[in-house]
């Protein structure tokens, strides 16, 4: 056949393409329909009794302490100034720039502030009040009321970690009204409430959150903080020098911890006590010897913060 015929075919193809047959489709299910029915029947008729052999969790043999520091290796990324666009007199007196707090490095020690480290295993749901797992020292603080203050349009606690049984007293030490918008996730309840000048409101999380969540103020959109709510009392937030300590942890069993830092992209390139390590999704497992104090000196490369 001749060149001319090819042009004709090509033309038709183009036409078809224009007509839209070549348009990208939304992806749809890719699996065999039969397995759906199988699963549906199985789902409907749950096997009563023990569904297969569950790996029993051994009990701890006593108590131990986990402490350590988080430090930054390399050039700390500069803190970005925030866009203060109202109530300047209160929020930025003298027009001084307000800097973001998602990553605060202590210039002296290179310590990383506001790194949360909290227990997530072995129990998927922590046995609250189980004396084998929860040291009695924690009993006293179970119902405590914690302070969450804001001054000059800055949340004074940038990352607040609490137990789901505890209460938070959200106070406002500014002469302007704020609204505290707590975007709870998981069991932790969300609540957005106006906090009048020098007034306060109470927040009761109710349940635990799988990971820290945002607390913002819609009236002053640049304000931001985070909150972490756990059933277990085993969590800590690193201080300005990057140090943290979790006392009275159950010992002799493999515990799993989760590490979280707001600005961290990943936890792949770490050195833990001098040895290179990788914590996938910030998780790591550790077994603490009885009545010992285990130290974790963690160094995170500034690359992990996209610097």
């Amino acid at each position, binding site marked *: 056949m001749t060149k001319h015929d090819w042009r004709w075919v090509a033309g038709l193809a183009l036409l078809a393409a224009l*007509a839209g047959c070549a348009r990208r489709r939304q992806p749809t299910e890719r*699996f065999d329909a039969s397995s759906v029915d199988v699963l549906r029947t199985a789902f409907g008729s*749950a096997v009563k009794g023990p569904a297969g052999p569950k790996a029993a969790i051994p009990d701890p043999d006593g108590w131990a302490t986990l402490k350590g520091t988080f430090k930054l290796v390399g050039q700390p990324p500069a803190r970005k100034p925030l866009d203060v*666009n109202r109530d300047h007199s209160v929020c930025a007196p003298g027009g001084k720039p307000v800097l973001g707090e998602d990553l605060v490095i202590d210039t002296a020690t290179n310590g990383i502030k506001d790194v949360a480290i909290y227990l997530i295993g072995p129990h998927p749901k922590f046995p609250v009040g189980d004396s084998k797992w929860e040291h009695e020292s924690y009993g006293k603080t179970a119902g405590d009321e914690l302070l969450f203050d804001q001054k000059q349009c800055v949340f004074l606690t940038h990352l607040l970690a609490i137990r789901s049984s505890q209460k938070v007293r959200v106070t406002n030490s500014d002469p302007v009204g704020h609204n505290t918008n707590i975007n709870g996730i998981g069991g932790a309840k969300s609540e*957005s409430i106006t906090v*009048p000048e020098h007034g306060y*409101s109470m927040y009761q999380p109710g349940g635990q959150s799988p990971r820290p969540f945002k607390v913002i103020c819609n009236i002053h959109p640049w304000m931001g903080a985070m909150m972490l709510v756990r059933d277990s009392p085993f969590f800590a937030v690193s201080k300005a020098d990057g140090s943290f300590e979790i006392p009275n942890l159950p010992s002799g069993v493999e515990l799993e911890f989760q590490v979280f830092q707001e600005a961290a992209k990943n936890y792949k390139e770490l050195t833990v006590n001098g040895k290179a390590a990788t914590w996938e999704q910030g998780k790591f497992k550790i077994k603490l010897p009885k009545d010992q104090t285990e130290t974790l000196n963690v160094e995170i490369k500034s690359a992990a913060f996209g610097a």
Partner: protein
Amino acid sequence: MNVRFASLALLAAALAVGCGPPKVSFVRYTTVAHKIAQDQMGQPEFSSEQWRDIDLTMAMLFGTPDNPEIPALEGGEVGQMMSLSRLKMAAGPVGSDEQGNPRGLYREHCAHCHGITGDGAGPTAVFLNPYPRDYRLGLFKFKSTPDKLRPTHEDLKKTVLEGIPGTAMPSFKLLPDVEVEALVDYVKYLSLRGEVERELLMRTSQLTEGRLMTVVAKAPASGEKAAGKAATPEEAAQQAQLDAVREAVKDIAGRWKSAKSAEVPARPEMDEQKLAASVARGRDLFYGTIANCIKCHGDSALGDGVTNDYEDWVKDLYDPSKEPKAAREYLARGMLPPRNARPRNLRLGVFRGGHRPLDIYWRLTNGIAGTPMPKVLMKPEGDPNAKGLVPSDVWDLVNYVQSLAYEPINNPLAAASEAENLRITP
């Protein structure tokens, strides 16, 4: 010559087969999937195996747009939420069954805005302001329950019946009650479905092996089950997977079950002067720092206070004010171009959540879920010198807000702009 005819035939075939009426199916929750994949797994997308698991599980739980299913939990949590017969009435293509009962109500009345999947992204959606609700978050603005709690059946029904004044959501008051019920149930169904998909995505990202449905056992012959003989390891593994899913569906369904309207104390009866006084008090509260309304609604209640904020479902994905470029990757995945959340202009007298005093009281004391609108601080019990409002204060605010629309200053041109068309009278 015959090449031409051949290619013509080819094109015809392509048209008939390739471009025939499409198979209607739920679309994936691509935006959130991208977000989760990035945050939790540090990769742009879920793998196709992970997606296969999710799709499979979703199909197992909720069926298809043409043939919906209710997740079968022993507790029947979901069964109490919605009835399958009503769902079938709302689902499927438009038409009617043998008995002449309507079918496909959702696609007749809702889908072109809210989308087949209830993602609030139907073909008409992009032209509307505000955008239609995306059911998949389980967040609804105008309801009687506080904070971000789920709405009650009545809340959703009211919205369907009355529509949402000031938006493109029309009233379906003129539909038969059974059809409205069907639609409300279907909205819940889509909402639940979306929440579950979101949850499954999150769980998948958390799983160490990253797979949700690794084993699919063969269907056990009814005889074996009856014999009650122990489950094979394969079945056991499968049950373990399903337990996880069950748990997820359970507590999401639980949120819907626990939805309960907030109580509202009766508004004090008032005569003219009392009302005037109450309005005056309300005005002070409006400008005061306890209720702090002016901050967002502006010094003259025209809704011009904070106008550069966004709603939560945008901020969940990315922060438009900080990283506007991130919009591209979500727009590519079906997000509608984000718009600012604008505080209501209270002088129009249009109340989207209803203009009954009750509704406005609820807006004030419950906040508006997903938006910057917070709830007012009620005076905590047992602390006399703490700041906060008492119900009568809230009623003052309600009265003031209701009176705003009628302040003569609103429309100085009312007379001029409504020149009556000339009429001759005998």
